[in-house]
């Protein structure tokens, strides 16, 4: 049996009286695109933040390649090769693309200029950024314009490229297509495929069922702070998955079972 790349068992996170994670499990297998879906407030974002070090769970454990890890901040998760594209929080708008690509991991000039004067090696960072962009087929007019002058899709492209460039283990994307048009969404989905084809597993949080069904190898359904199902897109209809997500259906031994008859009837599933 293959070990999961990234695993979580029994994660709990409380904010005052609100329980965001209530014993959540998580499994990401090598080389797959795993979609995480769930209603608003199901704890998707909290789960992802816990897995990427942005928050610390109150209890439960996280395993990377089968080994237990603790991330006290996002930097530590990144040191372990987990890169995240946060929704709306990916890139610094007034800085240029190359600076964003290397933000927090800047390259310095060799020799005295770098060591004593701490001078950044802008040409080298720009060249490396151009290479990553070309590799992922992200077309951009210029690497020296501020990111805020790019379109939404291009910005997302920069964020994804940065994550892919640095990730050695896992790329996590929180709603990467949420703010994008049809054409741009298509480009980002293509990008995700290219990332998977390079062998990196991708965790994709999304509300967009057609996108999830188009690209995911497996679906993790989050509900009320827990994982309630792991599904394959080919074995269930979109309506079934939505029903599981909202609690109208539950899953038992891989089969969808009606939990709430009225609700299931209302969406035509009984």
């Amino acid at each position: 049996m293959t070990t999961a790349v990234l695993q979580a068992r029994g994660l709990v996170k409380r904010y005052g009286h609100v329980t965001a994670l209530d014993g959540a499990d998580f499994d990401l297998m090598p080389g797959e695109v795993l979609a995480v879906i769930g209603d608003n407030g199901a704890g998707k974002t909290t789960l992802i933040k816990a897995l990427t070090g942005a928050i610390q769970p109150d209890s439960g454990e996280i395993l990377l390649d089968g080994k237990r890890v603790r991330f006290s901040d996002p930097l530590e998760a990144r040191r372990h090769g987990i890169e995240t594209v946060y929704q709306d929080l990916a890139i610094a708008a007034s800085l240029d693309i190359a600076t964003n690509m290397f933000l927090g991991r800047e390259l310095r000039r060799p020799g005295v200029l770098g060591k004593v004067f701490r001078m950044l090696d802008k040409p080298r960072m720009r060249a490396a950024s151009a290479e990553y962009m070309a590799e992922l087929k992200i077309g951009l007019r210029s690497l020296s314009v501020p990111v805020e002058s790019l379109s939404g899709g291009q910005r997302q492209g920069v964020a994804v490229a940065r994550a892919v460039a640095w990730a050695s283990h896992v790329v996590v994307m929180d709603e990467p297509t949420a703010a994008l048009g049809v054409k741009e969404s298509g480009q980002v989905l293509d990008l995700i495929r290219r990332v998977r084809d390079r062998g990196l597993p991708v965790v994709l949080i999304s509300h967009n069922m057609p996108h999830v069904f188009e690209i995911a190898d497996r679906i993790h359904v989050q509900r009320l702070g827990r994982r309630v199902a792991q599904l394959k897109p080919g074995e269930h209809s979109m309506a079934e998955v939505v029903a599981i997500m909202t609690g109208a259906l539950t899953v038992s031994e891989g089969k969808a079972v009606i939990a709430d008859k009225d609700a299931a009837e209302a969406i035509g599933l009984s």
Partner: protein
Amino acid sequence: MAVTEASLPRRILTTPTAGPLAALILACVFFSLNSEQFLTGGNFSLIIQQVMVVGTLAIGQTLIILTAGIDLSNGAIMAFGGIVMAKLSLSIPPLVAIGAGLAVCAAFGLINGLLVTKIVLPPFIVTLGMLNVVFALTHIYSQDQTVTGLPPELTFLGQTFQLGDTRVTYGSVLTIALFLLFAYLLGHTAWGRHVYALGNSPEIARLTGIRTDRLTVGVYSLAGLVYGIAALLLVSRTGVGDPQAGQTDNLDSITAVVLGGTSLFGGRGQVLGTLIGALIVGVFRNGLQLMGVPSIYQTLITGILVILAVAVDQLSRRRTR
């Protein structure tokens, strides 16, 4: 798809300092047409001397505004630093007194930074409180007395040397050097890039792995140290330790920063823009004076310029959205 660099004209036009620089040049052209004394080396040397104290304060202010903060206490911190240097220099070695003054200013910056990050108070409130605290301390410590009879080490920066046919103060050179130093630090080091990222969004910066609290405390402390240098410039220019000094310099430094094209929303701007902003104020004051315009009109025009600058910033931000 090919990745190309933006063309040079485009880069110049999109540089945030292009507008302020154009304004400065236009003002210089206007005043040289209206006054024969304006366009002389001696007059420019005077303008730089007049703006060097506020200009140096404005370097620290720029750092803090780039992080989306603001510092109302910088003039007061400078005044206190000046008094500490002046009073101590009468009893201990002058260089040690200068060091003590610098350290005191940096310490006030550090306290500001800690209050902003650890207790998460708005910079406006923290520095408003600090303004009053330090103002009071200055008057208590100095017993409202101007300190005179200072040793030459404290007034050295006010002395001049000959450059061509113009006399330039060492303080002016130090001020320009500080601007160049911070332009380098902000533009060409990782620290500088992180300051901009922090000003864009603290949360993005944090998620990128930048230690935002440490960075913020560092920026406020460094700004404090720069205020200490401003204090030394002030003492050397006036030749005394004056507890009444710098009372409107906090707002004047914000004026210089804003006129220089740095956004009050943080994350956008250049420290060399601040130099241009300080020079714009200095040129207007000086030029209008040479033309015989009453000083109250200088204040009026400065006010209009500030509103114009902020309006331009706001409109250009809206356009890029």
